[in-house]
């Protein structure tokens, strides 16, 4: 019998036990696989910031060709359900006031002539009460107007047309933003839950004591608990990346190899956090609460919801310690931007450092529990 720090026989026995514990338990199978996939579908289809099915009012004073063309294109635009034609500016305001339309266009008498000579502006009114959807609608309308060489001016403002062009996602397809980010978040929660429950479950069963009286060493326990969670988390991440590419047709422009490497490091650092939570939890209930107490702020600070650059400097520093922050940069970059290898590596090494630190701390915490 060997008393070495690491023994392959002991490791393999524990690894098999861990994999079987996750796979043979119908509840943990459900917990690990079903919610992430369901959430991916729900978020991708339901939680959208895209503007659809809106009504737009038009007060057209021009009888020329270009105003006709503009109206045709509005009619054909997929995000507009109805184009309401009105015959007075007063009526235009009324429709906005009552919330019946989200935006209104006033086409001046000289619109066609101005467009023909290379200018041309239509005035746009937006329902400011629905500021977010309104802004997006204006952006869509601007694109349509630009298509015929015209511009839009806000109501009662100086004609200073600002042209916004969205790089990498020219049509602002919302799913293109959300799916790559979700890949990271859902893989994070799966890996966090599997690992945070693992030691706590054994502690509740009493099998952890059994493990501790055996000659197995703490690093062996940590390794054998990390590997299955790492495998499951990585597979889940890959599955969701695949769904992004093949189901949602999101352009995948970067290097798959580098993405895989960062996915593995990302899950590994999350596994370290999960095992730290598990090492200090006496029960599975505490472990789950701990996982959410860490997981939710991590997601909020990671830059998924709000840009990291907008946060106070202290929080920006903290955000750097969150694995998801780095992984989001990589996954979004790989999907849409064809991010160069150097930029990816700049986010890879922090992941490696976080993984090293969290796994070491987890080992120390399990060991200190013996005191």
């Amino acid at each position, binding site marked *: 019998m060997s008393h070495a720090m690491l023994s392959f026989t002991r490791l393999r026995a524990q690894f098999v036990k861990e994999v079987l514990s996750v796979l043979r338990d119908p509840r943990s199978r459900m917990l690990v696989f079903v919610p992430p996939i369901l959430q991916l579908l729900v978020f991708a289809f339901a939680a959208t910031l895209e503007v659809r099915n809106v009504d737009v009012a038009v007060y057209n004073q021009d009888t020329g060709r270009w105003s006709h063309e503009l109206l045709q294109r509005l009619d054909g635009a997929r995000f507009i359900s109805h184009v309401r034609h009105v015959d007075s500016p007063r009526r235009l305001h009324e429709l906005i006031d009552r919330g019946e339309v989200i935006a209104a266009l006033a086409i001046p008498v000289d619109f066609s002539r101005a467009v023909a000579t290379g200018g041309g502006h239509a005035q746009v009114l937006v329902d400011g009460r629905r500021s977010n959807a309104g802004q997006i609608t204006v952006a869509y309308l601007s694109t349509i107007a630009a298509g015929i060489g015209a511009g839009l001016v806000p109501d009662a403002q100086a004609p200073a047309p600002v042209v916004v062009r969205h790089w990498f996602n020219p049509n602002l397809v919302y799913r293109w933003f959300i799916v790559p980010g979700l890949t990271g978040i859902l893989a994070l929660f799966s890996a966090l839950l599997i690992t945070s429950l693992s030691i706590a479950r054994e502690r509740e069963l*009493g099998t952890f004591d059994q493990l501790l009286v055996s000659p197995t060493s703490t690093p062996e326990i940590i390794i054998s608990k990390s590997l299955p969670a790492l495998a499951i988390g990585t597979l889940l991440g890959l599955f969701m990346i695949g769904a992004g590419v093949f189901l949602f047709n999101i352009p995948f422009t970067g290097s798959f190899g580098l993405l895989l490497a960062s996915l593995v490091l990302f899950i590994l650092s999350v596994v370290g956090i999960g095992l730290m939570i598990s090492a200090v939890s006496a029960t599975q209930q505490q472990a789950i609460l701990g996982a959410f107490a860490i997981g939710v702020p991590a997601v909020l600070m990671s830059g998924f919801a709000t840009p990291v650059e907008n946060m106070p400097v202290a929080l920006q520093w903290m955000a750097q310690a969150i694995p998801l922050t780095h992984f989001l940069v990589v996954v979004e970059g790989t999907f849409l931007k064809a991010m160069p290898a150097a930029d990816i590596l700049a986010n890879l090494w922090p992941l490696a450092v976080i993984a090293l630190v969290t796994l070491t701390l987890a080992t120390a915490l399990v060991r200190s529990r013996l005191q």
Partner: protein
Amino acid sequence: MSARSANDAARRRGKDAIAVAIEHVGKRFGKIEALRGLDATIRYGRLTGLVGPDGAGKTTLMRIMTGLLTPDAGRVTLAGFDVVEDNDAIHVASGYMPQRFGLYEDLSVMENMRLYARLRGMDADHHAELFDELLDFTRLGPFTTRLAGKLSGGMKQKLGLACALMARPEVLLLDEPGVGVDPVSRQDLWRMVQALIDEGMAVVWSTAYLDEAERCQSVLLLNQGRLLFDGPPHELTAQLEGRSFRLENVGAARRAVLTEALGLPSVSDGVIQGAGVRVVLRADAETEQVQALADRTQVQLAAVPARFEDAFIDLLGGGPGGASALAERLPPVELGTDVAVSCRHLTKRFGDFTATDSVSFEVRKGEIFGLLGPNGAGKSTTFKMLCGLLKPSAGEAHVVGHDLRRATGAAKGQLGYMAQKFSLYGLLSVRQNLEFSAGVYGLEGSFRRERIGEMIDTFDLGQWLSATPDALPLGHRQRLALACSLMHRPPVLFLDEPTSGVDPITRREFWTHINGLARKGVTIMVTTHFMDEAEYCDRVAMLSRARLIALDTPDALKRMAVAPERPDPTMEDAFIHLVESADPELEVAA
């Protein structure tokens, strides 16, 4: 105390009037039949024991009596009310103390009592007198501000009892009040219950300890949902009179003698009692064979009074045989040293609380060594330090010569450990559990396959290999746990309350294996709550308040407790005597 209402009830109905009538009650949970066609009566002014091993249906019957469960068949009336139809009245007429105290651990003793008073619709502020009475009765007066979670097991039970007595019930139902309570506190509970019975209350005390059954005036003996016996315990025990004998002072050979005795056709059951061997003969069997055995070993054979446990085992058709297939296969243990486990000035402090205070002893090779003590005495802390689960604050511990602090891995390779709840992986199959423990102790290749096959044969686990441990009968689950902890053939085996919640027959089978192991030179360290299990030990270390207060053979410990009113003290008497004489104030604190 609750004299008023209980006396009213007794006067109204007369002592010995029927308090609870159980008629053809049946209850099933899915496939499991928890109760099958039960008929029984419980009377006022008596302590009725609801006795049986775990899973016998005791708690199910309790919960039906309190109206918390509806029977599938039959009916139950309590104090004249039907438990299903007059459910509200049941809650007034009965007091129920569930197994897990039912206390709010983050509230103080007083807050718990006020809460229960309010839940009963009583105005807590106007019942100062009742509270004083209850606090006085339970001797909890000095601890009113202590959080319930910080109380000892015994004090929790007393507080639970005070809360259950709040509404002055006519029928008091106590679900396993003796579990997790050391003999000293248990004594106190008996005293309180006796006072209530004298006032005319009907008290039901459910228990898996058969020695508790003997103290009840009437007993309902349950096994697998069936009623085996209904009546005063001595009636059942009387049927066994003249069949119980003890081979006195057998000494070192007692394990061999027990094995031999259990092999005799005329013997139905046998246990070790200190240096002696206690046997029960089969019905109508002659003493010849046992007498011959006594003559051969040159010891005296004495008739002893029958115990309730003898009768219980007899009702179930006798105990298991005495040969351990496990021990037969095991090669004798060879150790370089004669001392298997030792500790010197072993101390553990948690903050400013000392759990173990300078404990020293040596355990010889092949010895069965017991650690006993009241709750919180430090026995499990000491035990955990000896098997490497806790690091001592001071002092040292050695297992087979290896220092547990320096050569942790080497020491751990020498010890096997079986925890209280058997600690098996419920999600893995029986075979996978065996494979896991073989692997985690570094067994490899054909050697490992051989060893696993051997364990499967020895413990007869062949037909259960693909089942999960939870699906196994209790006895088999215990065998599996033992198989897992013995996979690497450790010379030292640690058993942490190995048989709590196990029926007496499974317990005997377990001890057959342990005796066999000890005869092969395996050193056994055991903690236990069962006093009759302490009798199996060669020596017993008694801990109280973190200190070692006595260390001797069970017989010597019992002799210390001999008094004029107690000529032949039991292990429990010895325990109470030692703990109380070590610390006269302990009774109040417990």
